């Protein structure tokens, strides 16, 4: 990580795994020796309701316990939220937003209320279905977040995630390869 700290806000729907992705990001960054914080904000406790999750990744100790209002990076796990949630609120112009969508950057930008910073799109459904045979947006969105934020290098990330999946899916080794494939496919699709 070439910078002192980064603040990331995730937008998803309950049950989609935005919270899990934020916790996984904290986990993998911890392994590089960073100070990490990953936490969700729950609205109504039900599947499908909009939820927010947050990450602070920092070289120094993290003491602040509030939500993040001026993020460096926003990750939108569910494209339909663009119509109901102000996802770019407070997002720094020198920052970036990643949207899970089959649409291109040019097609998505008009939906971002004039946001002038960098916009990335990732077709997590296509990647996930091709790599895993099922739709789990987590792995592609996590990889996209690492690729865009540069909290760690690609190869370090791939290596740590392999170790983490091998631990997490010790009883389901058949899903490890697919998840790893989803990660590399995302890096390739983003061209970073």
């Amino acid at each position, binding site marked *: 990580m070439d910078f002192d700290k980064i603040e990331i806000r995730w937008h998803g729907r309950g049950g989609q795994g935005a919270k899990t992705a934020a*916790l996984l990001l*904290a*986990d993998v960054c*911890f392994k590089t020796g960073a*100070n*990490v*914080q*990953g*936490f*969700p*904000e*729950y609205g109504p*406790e039900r599947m499908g309701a909009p939820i927010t999750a947050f990450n602070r990744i920092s070289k120094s100790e*993290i*003491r*602040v*316990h*509030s*939500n993040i*209002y001026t993020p460096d990076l926003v990750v939108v796990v569910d494209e339909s939220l663009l119509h109901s949630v102000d996802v770019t609120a407070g997002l720094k112009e020198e920052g970036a937003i990643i949207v899970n969508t089959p649409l291109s950057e040019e097609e998505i930008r008009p939906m971002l209320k004039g946001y002038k910073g960098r916009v990335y799109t990732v077709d997590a459904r296509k990647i996930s279905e091709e790599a895993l045979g099922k739709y789990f947006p987590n792995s592609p969105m996590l990889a996209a977040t690492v690729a865009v934020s540069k909290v760690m290098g690609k190869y370090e990330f791939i290596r740590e995630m392999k170790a983490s999946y091998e631990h997490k899916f010790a009883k389901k080794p058949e899903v490890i390869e697919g998840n790893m494939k989803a990660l590399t496919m995302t890096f390739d699709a983003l061209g970073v």
Partner: protein
Amino acid sequence: MSVKDRMSGNEAVAYAIKQVNPDVMPAFPITPSTEIPQLVSNYIANNEMDTEFIPVESEHSSMSATIGAEAAGARSLTATSSCGLALMWEELLLAASNRMPCVLTLVNRTLSGPININCDHSDAMGARDTGWIQIFAESNQEAYDNFIQAYPIAEDKRVHLPVMICQDGFITSHAVQNIVLNEDEEVQDFVGEYHPEEFLLNDGNPIAIGPYSISSYAMEARKAQEMAMENSKEVIIEVARRYKEKFGRGFELFEEYKTEDADYIMVIMGSAAGTAKQAVDDLREKGMKVGVLKLRVFRPFPAEELAEALKNAKGIAIMERTESYNGHGGPLCSELRAALYEHKVYTEAVCYTYGLAGRDFTVEHVYDIFNEVNDIVVNGKEYKQHRYINLRTKEV
């Protein structure tokens, strides 16, 4: 050797429970503390600890079973939040008055209503006069460290009172952060074996626990309980010092952050103290002499020590994460202002209510509060006691 890890506050407390390996844990799930009994159950199922876990049908029963187990001579604990604690009300008083050194790990959540699952301190504050020692944490690390200190405090012969280890619901309970964990053996050494002096399953030494007490004895029992609470202060300090010596971390009754030369001091409890400390650093860069006093121990209330620590401040912001509905501030405000008065510390002390039912509290709010206190002290700005922070409607 300590181990660097990352955990949520709930994971950290469950891990501390595994290391301490108490005898009995009855529990009933309630958000946001549910993960604690869930993780402990996993540890038990995986043979990583041998605590007897009792699934019960309500919190009324979990506290009753905790008292029963403790009375039998077993080191016991339970976990809960919010309405779960409210449902334990009667038993909380019984645990304390029967002098049961059991532990409750509380994940602070607001009380209804409107029904809400998020953090404030109304659950713990509702139980502030039940005779429990109450210790609050800023972070996952402090929740972990505080839990390990709970039994050495509770079981000390000078104390013999139950201990409530509190952390902020979701804000620390569900936030993954870096943490330093102690070795199992070192934790077990620190906590020690439990050797109760008098207990029900003590063959040949029959005793009664919780019998009716006529008026000629009941008041003396209350006084003895009050003395135990007074005694607990020195025990809490001793245990904290021993912990710091062994593990290198922690605070005694409170943490004083940059208060020594501070004109204005914010008194605050729980996770928001971290946010306040960051704001203090920012304001000091701009030349404002401010500090934070983070209260760790609410019961016993360190009135004298707080007055001493705050006596040189020109202005104090007392941060309240509870509404008392008494018309002039919550419990921390009322007790702290009484302590200041008693010890003849006559300074501006403004009460701010913040963070109810999970309302966010940011560094910007801390800047605003310190600026207002400055305005009050320097310019004599008229102010309203018992202000609400970050309210969406205008206060009248």
